[in-house]
């Protein structure tokens, strides 16, 4: 028997603990329910069923205890919590056996119900602490929607991400969640404590765990990406692992110097980290369309739409059962200042307006500026000038403006500073100078300005044709 339980066998059997443990839970609870029910005069007959259920429950409780003991020998658990769970489990097994004996020999009849009750309380507590051991202490309550636990939950929403402290608010919660249980004051596996910046800097028995700015050479990161079969892998196989986002945060923090007090905005945002950060923004999901108003609007009247379609302008609803429309003059190159007035009856509905390659001029922009919901405006290759841009200051919702191939100059685009919502501006093939651009960029740093004119370097390989050398 001892030989059997040595080595791998003990862990193999031990791992049956989570499976076996649910049997006594179910059985003993049923025994208790039957016990209670049999107190009813009409159901006294149930009393006879209690003993067999109890016996089965007690046997499975013993089996679960044995498996549990074997599992605990594999180590890696918080010892205080483990002790509590173990003694409670053993308590349940002992009490259930006692109850079996009492029932079999009809001893202490009066005490059966109270003892069963104590057993159930103990069973519940043992079950709860067992769950904590496996899933972590905050598993049960972390998602409680009203508690602050949900908001503090590691990498979920942080109110002001840019001002958040990288170590305190991003890194520490990860370590707390995934590493503290083994690397704390009490446990100190590998001589390493991770619960505090000083301890992290100090490292473990094999030296420091962070090599500044080189995550690939820092044990704190390196071990996380080893294969799961590797002995050195952290967290070890079977323990809750870091999510890809959490890995990226640790990588980034070390890469940027593992500073104890930098805020998110202090550090350089690599594109990969940018993606992670975006994912952490509250409500920044892909479900929210970046160019659509949040409110709803009634549908435009067919007459007003008809008037535009008569001159070849397409009016397209943005979506089913959505009143907002996209208006395209792609088939109406004659569209100009006179026709712009036809847009006004749809002013509540137009969000997207494509007037590229038309005769739209400055006075049309005056009309367009009265479209309060307009978010995207295409004016490529139209005769608009700086004078027209004056009017656009009224378009408070304008997020995208395409001025490719127009006559706008520095004077005009500097007026766009007033468009607080403007995120994308296209100025390819315009006379705008770099000086004005840098002034605009400084004033509105979040505006993405594309002046185009991209070139590719000429490479010798561009014209090379690879052929096998004929001998």
């Amino acid at each position, binding site marked *: 028997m001892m030989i059997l339980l040595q080595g791998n066998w003990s862990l193999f059997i031990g791992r049956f603990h989570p499976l076996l443990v649910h049997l006594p839970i179910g059985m003993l609870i049923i025994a208790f329910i039957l016990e209670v029910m049999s107190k009813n005069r009409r159901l006294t007959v149930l009393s006879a069923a209690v003993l067999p259920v109890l016996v089965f429950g007690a046997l499975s409780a013993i089996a679960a205890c044995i498996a549990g003991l074997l599992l605990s020998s594999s180590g890696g658990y918080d010892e205080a919590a483990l002790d509590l769970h173990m003694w409670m489990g053993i308590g349940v097994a002992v009490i259930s056996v006692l109850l079996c004996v009492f029932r079999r020999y009809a001893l202490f009849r009066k005490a059966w119900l109270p003892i069963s009750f104590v057993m159930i309380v103990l069973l519940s507590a043992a079950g709860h602490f067992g769950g904590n051991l496996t899933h972590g202490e905050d598993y049960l309550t972390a998602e409680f929607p009203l508690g602050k636990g949900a908001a503090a939950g590691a990498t979920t929403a942080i109110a002001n991400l840019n001002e958040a402290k990288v170590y305190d608010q991003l890194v520490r919660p990860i370590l707390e969640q995934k590493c503290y249980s083994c690397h704390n004051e009490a446990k100190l596996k590998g001589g390493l404590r991770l619960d505090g910046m000083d301890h992290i800097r100090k490292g473990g028995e094999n030296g420091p765990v962070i090599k500044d700015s080189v995550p690939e050479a820092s044990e704190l990161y390196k071990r996380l990406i080893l294969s799961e079969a590797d002995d050195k892998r952290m967290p070890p196989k079977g323990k809750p692992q870091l999510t890809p986002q959490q890995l990226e945060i640790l990588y980034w923090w070390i890469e940027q110097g593992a500073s104890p007090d930098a805020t998110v905005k202090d550090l350089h945002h*690599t*594109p*990969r980290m940018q*993606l992670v950060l*975006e994912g952490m923004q509250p409500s920044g999901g*892909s479900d929210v*369309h970046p*160019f*659509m108003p949040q409110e709803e609007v009634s549908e435009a009247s067919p007459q007003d739409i008809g008037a535009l379609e008569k001159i070849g302008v*397409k009016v*397209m*609803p*943005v*979506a*089913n059962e*959505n009143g*907002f429309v996209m208006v*395209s003059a*792609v*088939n109406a190159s004659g569209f100009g200042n006179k026709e712009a007035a036809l847009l006004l009856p749809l002013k509540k509905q137009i969000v997207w307006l*494509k007037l*590229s390659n038309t005769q739209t001029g400055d006075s049309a922009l005056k009309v367009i500026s009265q479209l309060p919901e307009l978010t995207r405006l*295409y004016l*490529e290759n139209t005769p608009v000038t700086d004078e027209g841009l004056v009017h656009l200051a009224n378009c408070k919702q304008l997020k*995208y403006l*395409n001025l*490719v191939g127009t006559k706008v100059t520095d004077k005009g685009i500097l007026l766009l500073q007033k468009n607080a919502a403007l995120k*994308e501006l*296209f100025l*390819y093939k315009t006379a705008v100078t770099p000086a004005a651009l840098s002034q605009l960029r400084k004033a509105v740093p979040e505006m993405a300005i*594309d*002046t*185009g*004119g*991209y*070139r*590719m370097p000429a*490479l010798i*390989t*561009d014209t*090379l*044709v*690879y*052929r*096998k050398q004929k001998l």
Partner: protein
Amino acid sequence: MSEKIIQEANERAAKYFSRRHFLQDCITGLGATALGSLLGGCNIFSGPGNGAMPQSLNPLEPRAPHFPARAKSVIYLHMAGAPSQLELFDYKPELQKLHNQLCPPSILEGKKFAFIRGVPKMLGPQAVFAQHGESRAWVSDHLPHFSKMVDDVSFLKAVQTDQFNHGPAQLFMHTGSARLGRPSIGSWVTYGLGSENSNLPGFVVLTSGGKTPDAGKSVWGSGFLPSVYQGVQCRSKGDPVLFLTDPEGMDRDMRYQSIHAINEVNKLEYERFQDPEILSRISQYELAYKMQISVPGVMDIADEPEYIHQLYGTQPGKEAFANNCLLARKLVEKGVRFVQLFDWGWDAHGTGEDLSIDYGLRNKAREIDKPISALLMDLKQRGLLDETLVVWGGEFGRTPMQENRDGKEMPYLGRDHHVEAFTMWMAGAGIKKGGSWGETDEIGFAAVKGKVAVHDIHATMLQQLGFDHEKLTYQFQGRPFRLTDVEGHVIHEILG
């Protein structure tokens, strides 16, 4: 003459009102009437069906998607023949270590290959890889220009298919089914959205590389959708569309009059028979008339400035992938919904110099490198990239093993067809910038993380166009059909 026409019309009418039709009408008519009265107020059999589009006389009328879209147009760059992911994007240093060693039998167990027989040797990456951009994406030196664009695209590194022959795999990639008869993605999209520009087709196809795809024209066919939604293939050399000029002795006015008359007759026919193919015919006549004016302007790349030609590396007058990329940009600019490019010549088995990993693939990569990079740049500078979804990929990938057709040594290095993992990328229209999803094992044989099926790609494309892929359906043979059949998950990991 007129007698003949009348006779023809009578015969046609007779064909429609045969005894069989009469009986069929009686049965279905009576049945439906009875059922209708049984069901009382229950209205499920009337009105537009599940997701069916309201039928106006113009089948290409712009229509609304299910929800506001991120993409208005799609440019799909299909590398027919299947490029090797192991020489372009999927860097496998471990494979280099195994170069020229026999493939471990554990990998081959239970697998079937198109040409590999027995135990092949492993073939290390035949390219030099480096990480590029801020996204640290791996790209080989075969694509020096594209490697500068990686921060604009999202890679899918673990795409899987279940077809290892070109024809079925291309059909699967473009119609969602390996068998004939289903509409292509472009057809679904024009069916769903109509066309913004009424002077141009909503779905244009351009080919290069000297051959059309192995699957034939069905990869841009409309399947069971009305044929008005099929892709319009424009010639890549010479006149893009034939017979655009009016024939001698026929002026534009007369042309208009005759097309108008034909369409009037066709409208009568439609009122009588309600056959959607008649609507297709009407709209094609109208479109053809309008294209006489619109096409020469749009399809002519000669009026583009010189530096644009340099950017793309175009070769005016020749059939070239670069020309097609430039045309794709011009078409999207004009509101064409779906531009499908096919470039043939990626089938690097090693059977010949042009179809080899060591020579042919490098030449093909060089041919597309500038054009695809230029396309992304050009869309970007014109403010079109954030509403244009660009998709690049082949119909499957290539094996980490060297091909040994018939168990023999091949004259050149080659790789066989591989279905278990290959790379595709998407860009623009709400796709993450500098993203990557999916991983393959150490030798690039199997997908280990972020597996993506062909239907998932379709679901994602439809999602960006504003469609719930489960709701864009067409009633056919008694049941609603969709592009993604009963599968497909949107790949949220690459959405920004």
